[in-house]
């Protein structure tokens, strides 16, 4: 059995661990998973990190790597599409239409930083559609976490009344109330992956990529809360 | 008796157990070998030994009892530590001002400039302690303590590392202070010279206990105490100074038990001078003849080794003072070639240390009347 070194954006870590288990069961090969923020992983890869595969939380960083010629040509692909959800740990706070954003009695709303996190950027778009972005921003009620993991923590601790996180996270929570904005109200969150040029075993990496296309793998991803167009 | 104390301290290999009543004026000297507990006792009085168990009363004011202990900084005392201790971050001036500024103006009984001048610190005021010599540090520490205008002065070997000139400058000042401020002083020293010069009361400590204590005269001549067997063995005589007693040749005439005695004018303690002259130390007195009244009491020190005995009054010899005394007893001295003769001079006792050979040659016996010759300069 061989070993594959995979760098994963933190929000996909849990799912990747599940995939890794299955992959090992079916092929015997092992995945060595390093997680981090997409930005940090990108910086590490540009500086020679010994990864075979990179699963980013966006499409921007993989594209950048492609431009820099750091990936195997044609290896960039979308492995999952993120679904944004407004979530609160309080049971009746969020209504089915998300009107709470406009009229609700809440103090803080947490989102991932729109400048560097795709979910944050999407959240901003939703807020703009709802027409509350400006107000929240002016009233300094908008919390910008470094990523949706942090947003989740802030909401879960009750410090922020609600926040925009990934459906993949909200799924794990039984409690609370949620609203899933219409996918058309924000540009799709394409989580892309690439095989790195410096990979020590490109063939195995390719093998894993094609294994991911199998329905069983895709189902795992979908069940985790990602939008997988082909499966629907 | 207004300093009443009773202290006990248990340490691994040392135990202090002291009950004392000390007079509320004059100098009490604590005497004893290294490690006998002198410093520890001073620290107890100052309130610095927290483990000390005991009572302390000063002038009807209770400083310590079972359940109560007056904090150190509220006790109106001055403490000169054995190892001169100054604030390293302050220069000499600020060190001296430290205590001075913390005493209310109305309560100040010494003058800043006076102390600075007397201790010869004028040129050092801007220095930091690390830039001072050992003796200079000691003088500054002395100044700091004096400048708090204390009502009780505790001094732990304050002159141990001073040269004799500095000592000669400072001793009269201390004598003056003690008289002028009616300030009780507790003084630790190993120097018999300082003892005989300053002490009124002597406490002899041994292994943390008071072996003996009492007025200076009595202690010095007590045959059971070690004072009489040191090379410095001395007696202190009570004399009267005549006001008209100043002679042409700078001698002063005293009376001791009805007999005449001459001492050098310079040795007359300052407090027998008019008040405004008290600060002039080291100036010859010739110009300012002392105005002590006929019977003003004065004490003179006679070292045992300075006394010469004769069976008939000698002639043609440079010994000014010749007293008629009676031999009380003759004892062996530590030094086997010497004997210690106790002499009765009226009510007072005087010691003479002379060689055994002289005892034999002169055939000295108890109760014999002899002449005690003392060199004029031996008195002070």
């Amino acid at each position, binding site marked *: 059995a061989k070993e594959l070194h995979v760098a994963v954006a933190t929000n996909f870590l849990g799912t990747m661990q599940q995939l890794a288990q299955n992959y090992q069961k079916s092929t015997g090969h092992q995945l060595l998973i390093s997680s981090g923020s997409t930005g940090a992983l990108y910086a590490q890869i540009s500086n020679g990190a010994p990864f075979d595969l990179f699963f980013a939380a966006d499409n921007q960083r993989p594209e950048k790597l492609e431009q820099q010629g750091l990936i195997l040509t044609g290896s960039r692909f979308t492995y999952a599409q993120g679904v944004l959800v407004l979530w609160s740990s309080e049971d009746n706070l969020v209504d089915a239409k998300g009107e709470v954003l406009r009229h609700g009695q809440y103090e*803080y709303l947490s989102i991932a*930083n729109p400048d*560097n996190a795709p979910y944050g950027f999407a959240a901003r778009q939703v807020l703009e559609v709802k027409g509350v972005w400006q107000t929240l921003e002016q009233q300094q009620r908008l919390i*910008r*976490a*470094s990523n949706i993991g942090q947003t989740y923590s802030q909401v879960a601790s009750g*410090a922020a009344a609600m926040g925009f996180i990934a459906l993949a996270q909200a799924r794990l929570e039984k409690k609370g109330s949620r609203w899933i904005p219409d996918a058309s109200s924000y540009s799709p969150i394409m989580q892309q992956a690439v095989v790195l040029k410096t990979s020590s075993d490109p063939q195995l990496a390719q093998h894993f990529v094609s294994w991911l296309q199998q329905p069983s793998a895709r189902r795992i991803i979908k069940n985790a809360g990602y939008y997988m167009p082909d499966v629907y | 008796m207004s300093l009443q104390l009773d202290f006990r301290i248990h340490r691994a290999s040392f135990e202090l157990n002291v009950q004392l009543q000390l007079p509320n004026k004059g100098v009490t000297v604590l005497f004893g070998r290294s490690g006998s507990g002198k410093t520890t006792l001073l620290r107890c009085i100052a309130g610095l030994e927290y483990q000390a168990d005991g009572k302390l009363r000063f002038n009807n004011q209770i400083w310590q009892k079972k359940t109560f202990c007056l904090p150190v*900084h509220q006790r109106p005392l001055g403490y000169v530590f054995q190892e001169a*201790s100054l604030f390293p971050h302050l220069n000499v001036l600020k060190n001296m001002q*430290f205590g001075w500024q913390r005493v209310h103006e109305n309560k100040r009984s010494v003058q800043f400039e006076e102390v600075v001048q007397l201790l010869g610190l004028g040129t050092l005021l801007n220095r930091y302690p690390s830039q001072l010599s050992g003796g200079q540090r000691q003088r500054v520490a002395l100044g700091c303590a004096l400048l708090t205008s204390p009502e009780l002065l505790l001094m732990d070997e304050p002159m141990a590392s001073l040269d004799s000139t500095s000592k000669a400058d400072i001793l009269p000042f201390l004598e003056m202070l003690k008289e002028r401020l009616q300030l009780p002083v507790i003084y630790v020293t190993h120097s018999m010279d300082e003892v005989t010069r300053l002490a009124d009361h002597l406490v002899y400590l041994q292994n943390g206990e008071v072996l003996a204590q009492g007025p200076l005269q009595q202690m010095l001549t007590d045959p059971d105490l070690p004072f009489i067997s040191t090379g410095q063995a001395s007696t202190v005589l009570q004399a009267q100074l005549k006001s008209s007693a100043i002679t042409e040749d700078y001698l002063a005439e005293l009376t001791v038990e009805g007999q005449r005695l001459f001492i050098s004018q310079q040795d007359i303690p300052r407090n027998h001078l008019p008040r405004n002259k008290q600060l002039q130390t080291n100036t010859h007195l010739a110009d300012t003849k002392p105005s002590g009244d006929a019977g003003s009491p004065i004490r003179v020190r006679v070292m045992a080794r300075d006394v010469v005995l004769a069976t008939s009054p000698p002639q043609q010899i440079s010994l000014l003072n010749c007293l008629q005394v009676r031999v009380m007893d003759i004892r062996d001295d530590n030094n086997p070639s010497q004997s210690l003769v106790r002499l009765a001079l009226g009510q007072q006792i005087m010691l003479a240390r002379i060689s055994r050979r002289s005892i034999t040659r002169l055939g000295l016996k108890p109760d014999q009347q002899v002449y005690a010759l003392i060199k004029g300069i031996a008195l002070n």
Partner: protein
Amino acid sequence: MWSLTPADLSALWITVKLAVISTLLLILLCAPLAWWLAHSKSRARVIIEALVALPLVLPPTVMGFYLLLLLGPKGAVGGFLEQLGVGHLAFSFSGLVIGSMLFSLPFVVQPLQNAFSEAGGRVLEVAATLRASPWDSFIHVVLPLSRRGFITAGVLSFAHSLGEFGMILMIGGNIPGRTQVASIAIYNYVEAMDYQGAHQLSSILVLSSFTLLICIFALNRQAKVTQIH
């Protein structure tokens, strides 16, 4: 040459404000604690000493998370404050200050404790015999003699407050103009691959801290030379 955005400027300003306030508060509050640690003979001392070092052990983000639980509206402290009408502390500048203080606690307590241990003993006895009350001695003797310890405490706490961001991000919420500090701004630049912006803000932070530190150490040295310690 440098082009700082208004957000950068406001972040720098908040950073300085946070570092100064939390350092000052910390020194004020820790001095008595350090004094007690230096002089107490109590057995509890060892436990307190160990507790003081603990904030360092956990990763800042995690510490921040626990703090958020505590200070947020549902937390014990935050809830209590809320009831008092003060408002909870999460995502506020005050919360930031508290977090920052907690995190720099060991850097302040330990040097002060060491300094106070050295500055005790004989000089305090001398001060007491010169009529200085304990408080008076503390101000006029202990403090000047512990200068070195205070400088170390101040420098470490100040520098650490500048650089800390994990906990601050969590508990402060990165609200521009209120709780967004320079370290978060730099972090964001790095994440957003705007290395130019990151370099620029980093340089400003590093250079100005460097200048400040040099001034502090030079002054300290001068004070030492005149005293010939």
